[in-house]
């Protein structure tokens, strides 16, 4: 390994090392707060080393990994999200579980998996990263092993994720059998030379890969697990599943499409378009029926992935910017929404029924304002980040003249409003239900405050983030 390769891999190395350090720490001195601090230190150092890695980027390291701005951006995003999840988990586990320290080890491993995933340029590293992420997630979901719901959710996730991994693996094998390579870049040229997409094997393989990825992204028709897992998993873990796991998968899928020139294959694009439309409609319509906030957010996330897919299908430079901006927004808002749920669920059961939030506006105006902001951002209302995100996605769609998809998106935004507003209406109602909710710790308030400010800031003044994204992604296409 050369020096520059080492530098480029530093973010990943730091994460791996911190996982080991936390293992050692737990063996020697079991202490919750220390584990948290070590984990956070690892995440922050890793984040700082991104700038070191950037100096030597873009760099292809063996055939497996490519450290470039695109990958580093998503690593950064993952790290920031993980910091929030770690903080939320600390608070959430404090009163719930005896052996809480190991959670952070698994969390770090999941982050490592996600980071590998977003930098992979090879089927092998893709699969490796994905499995590292997924296996860690099984543990994270089932971590509260004494209660029933998380276990149920974990089993469901285990079976479906394992099945989807099998699909993915089989798809890769079929492509490999026909083309003879697992490297994205070589794959692209060979496919173009041989007209490989006419081959049944390749098409089937690609179909299976999309199926496997679809499971991870929870898009229709591969979405069945989402509401149950969202509902059953501890709220901070749900936030992690919703953000890091989906974002990582989407990033690698985008890279795959760019590198193998997937956009020139109409069949595939049509298939993804159908998935996008179905996700938007099914997600939004089923969300209308929910009375449980976590399930509601699960269905809404299905719809949101449909929105992102519109930009994905659009392709091109604008699409990359749109996807990245939307993902950032989606990360912040989702973390905020689940953060509020997990912070309000101190001690006893999670507060997940919409009714639990009745009157929150009057008993806790600031908290309710924050929650409202997250919800409005998910709905894409101006002054919030969600609006700018949606605007970028629509721009990308219109830019590629995807009028049909864009109109479906507009219709769905209107449908979505209805259930988002229901949550807001509940908070506004003149009932004192919400007074039973527990107080939020100071740390929790800071997290929520920062996330709310981020939503506001990205919604009012998007130029810096858009600039950053644009400059990081300009080399991609």
């Amino acid at each position, binding site marked *: 390994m050369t020096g520059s390769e080492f530098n480029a891999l530093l973010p990943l190395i730091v994460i791996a090392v911190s996982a080991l350090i936390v293992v050692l720490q737990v063996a020697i001195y079991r202490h919750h707060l220390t584990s948290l601090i070590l984990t956070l230190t690892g995440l922050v150092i890793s984040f700082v080393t991104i700038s070191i890695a950037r100096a030597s980027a873009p760099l292809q390291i063996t055939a497996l990994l490519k450290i470039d701005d695109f990958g580093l951006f998503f690593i950064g995003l993952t790290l920031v999200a993980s910091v929030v999840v770690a903080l939320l988990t600390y608070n959430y586990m404090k009163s719930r579980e005896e052996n809480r320290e190991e959670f952070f080890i698994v969390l770090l491993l999941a982050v490592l998996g996600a980071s590998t995933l977003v930098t992979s340029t090879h089927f092998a590293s893709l699969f490796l990263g994905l499995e590292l992420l997924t296996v860690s997630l099984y543990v994270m979901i089932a971590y509260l092993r004494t209660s029933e719901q998380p276990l149920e959710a974990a089993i469901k996730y285990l079976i479906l994720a394992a099945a989807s991994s099998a699909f993915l693996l089989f798809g890769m094998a079929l492509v490999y059998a026909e083309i003879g390579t697992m490297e994205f870049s070589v794959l692209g040229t060979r496919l173009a030379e041989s007209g490989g997409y006419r081959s049944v094997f390749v098409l089937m393989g690609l179909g299976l890969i999309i199926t496997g990825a679809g499971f991870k992204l929870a898009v229709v028709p591969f979405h069945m697990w989402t509401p149950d897992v969202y509902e059953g998993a501890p709220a901070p873990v749900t936030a992690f599943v919703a953000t890091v796991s989906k974002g990582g998968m989407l990033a690698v899928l985008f890279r795959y499409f760019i590198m193998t020139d997937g956009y020139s294959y109409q069949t595939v694009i049509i298939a993804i378009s159908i998935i996008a439309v179905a996700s938007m409609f099914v997600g939004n319509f089923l969300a209308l029926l929910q009375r449980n906030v976590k399930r509601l957010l699960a269905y809404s996330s299905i719809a949101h992935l449909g929105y992102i897919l519109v930009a994905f299908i659009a392709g091109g430079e604008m699409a990359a910017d749109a996807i990245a901006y939307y993902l950032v927004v989606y990360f912040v808002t989702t973390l905020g929404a689940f953060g509020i749920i997990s912070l309000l669920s101190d001690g006893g059961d999670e507060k997940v029924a919409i009714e639990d939030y009745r009157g929150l506006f009057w008993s806790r105006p600031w908290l309710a304002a924050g929650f409202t902001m997250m919800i409005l951002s998910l709905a894409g209302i*101006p002054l919030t980040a969600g609006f700018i995100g949606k605007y970028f996605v629509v721009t990308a769609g219109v830019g590629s003249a995807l009028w049909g998809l864009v109109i479906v998106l507009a219709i769905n935004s209107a449908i979505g*409003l209805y259930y988002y507003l229901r949550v807001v209406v509940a908070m506004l109602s003149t009932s004192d239900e919400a007074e039973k909710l527990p107080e939020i710790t100071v740390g929790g308030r800071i997290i929520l405050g920062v996330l709310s400010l981020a939503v506001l800031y990205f919604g009012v003044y998007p130029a810096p983030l858009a600039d950053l994204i644009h400059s990081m992604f300009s080399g991609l296409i």
Partner: protein
Amino acid sequence: MILVWLFLIPVIGGLLAWMIDRQSKTAARWISLIAVGLDFALAIYLWMQHFDQMSLMERGNWLVQVQYDWIPQYGVSFFLALDGLSLLMILLTGLLGILSVMASWTEIQERSGFFHFNLLWIIGGIVGVFLAMDLFLFYFFWEMMLIPMYFLIAIWGHENRIYASIKFFIFTQASGLLMLLSILGLYFVHHNNTGVYTFNYMELLGTSIAPNVAMWLMLGFFIAFITKLPAFPLHTWLPDAHTEAPTAGSVILAGLMLKTGAYGLLRFVLPLFPGAAATIAPYAMFLGVVGIIYGAILAFAQNDLKRLVAYTSVSHLGFVLLGIFAFNEIAMQGAVMTMICHGLSTGGLFILVGGLYERIHTRDMERMGGLWTTVPKMGTAAMFLAMASLGLPGLGNFIGEMLALFGAYQANITLTVFATIGLVFATVYSLWIIQRAFHGEPREQWNIKDFTGRHITIMAVMAVVLVWLGLYPKPVLDTAKPAIQKIEKSVRVQTMTKTSSPIENMTVTESSDVLKVEYENEEM
């Protein structure tokens, strides 16, 4: 900078009112009143400052403008500009803002800080809509005013408020999204033509668009604006929202929010897509006439006094639509005049109904009757406003509707005849209000207090302004004139080229280049 303050004052005032509410409710009310008062004063100052130039100014570029970068990489700028049309709308906003704060002085007791926050933010958003000359910014403000309005209806509304607020929100949001698509379509067409990404209104004006594309893009704007206006058949959110909203909400909805739709038609649909607008003009005028008659008939059929007033808005705004799409200066002047006078007279009626509701806790006209003897001052106010609403000569509404009809007559005689029938209907429903609520035998014994000084002041202001507009409308017409002429010219140029070369028209892309050239000359 003064334009930024026009927008910022209500926004900051709203935040202050919310903050201070915990200490003192009265302070929150006073802060709101001062904020809108300041806004109004600023608008008056602008009017005075530019009054002479405005009437001299046949050239008609912006009176004041301010521009900052916002998202430069996507060509989005914070571009506010003011011409006569915007100025009139802002004056109306300031005046109605003051009146609506005054009208809710005693009505809103619960959570009044948050109430005033929402009220002032709506006003801020509306001011933004009237000033924004960057299409992205315009859309931003357009959507921004919805959320506080939604809260206003959903929290302080009457019985059926949740249904009404959600319906209002979804209607306006969905139509707004169509507009967003059109804005983006225009943005990309302009980029394909020139290689520049921009949302700047002035730069987009010259965009040449293939006729069929222009039609689709125009329809996106058109639907958004006539939903807000509202025109038949997209008006169904209005009766619910107006009826369920608290008084101040109804005043703002009827007086200002509906005007943003009309303003959008004048400012964006006509100048940006003159050809496509000319094509649909007969249909738009037809919708206007349907609205006039349909709104009037439904108004007559209501028992709920507030709902009745709500339906009269559909009818009055029909004249506005008719006037705008008649495509001549006099009709557009009429439309603008009607917008202002309708804002005042209908706003006044809502305040009256709100005052009545505060006293007798019903809006059902079956239970009223003979109120004149109990509350003569309210009766007088109602009489005056009803007269204004039916278009009595000497009051502003008369001027507006007459001008609109004069202009429409030149464009389409048949439709104008039907529109005129609407005036008769207006007489019927206006007198019907007086007859059922204030005249006749009292059906129930109400022991209630008459208007106090606060309401009398509100009504007096309305009356003075309406009489002034009815007798001496020249200042307003002069103020609007340059802006209107500019818009009218853009359409006329287009329709002329259309008729002169019907064959060429098939291939030629439509453009408002002529207008663009003029703008550029003016700026030198």
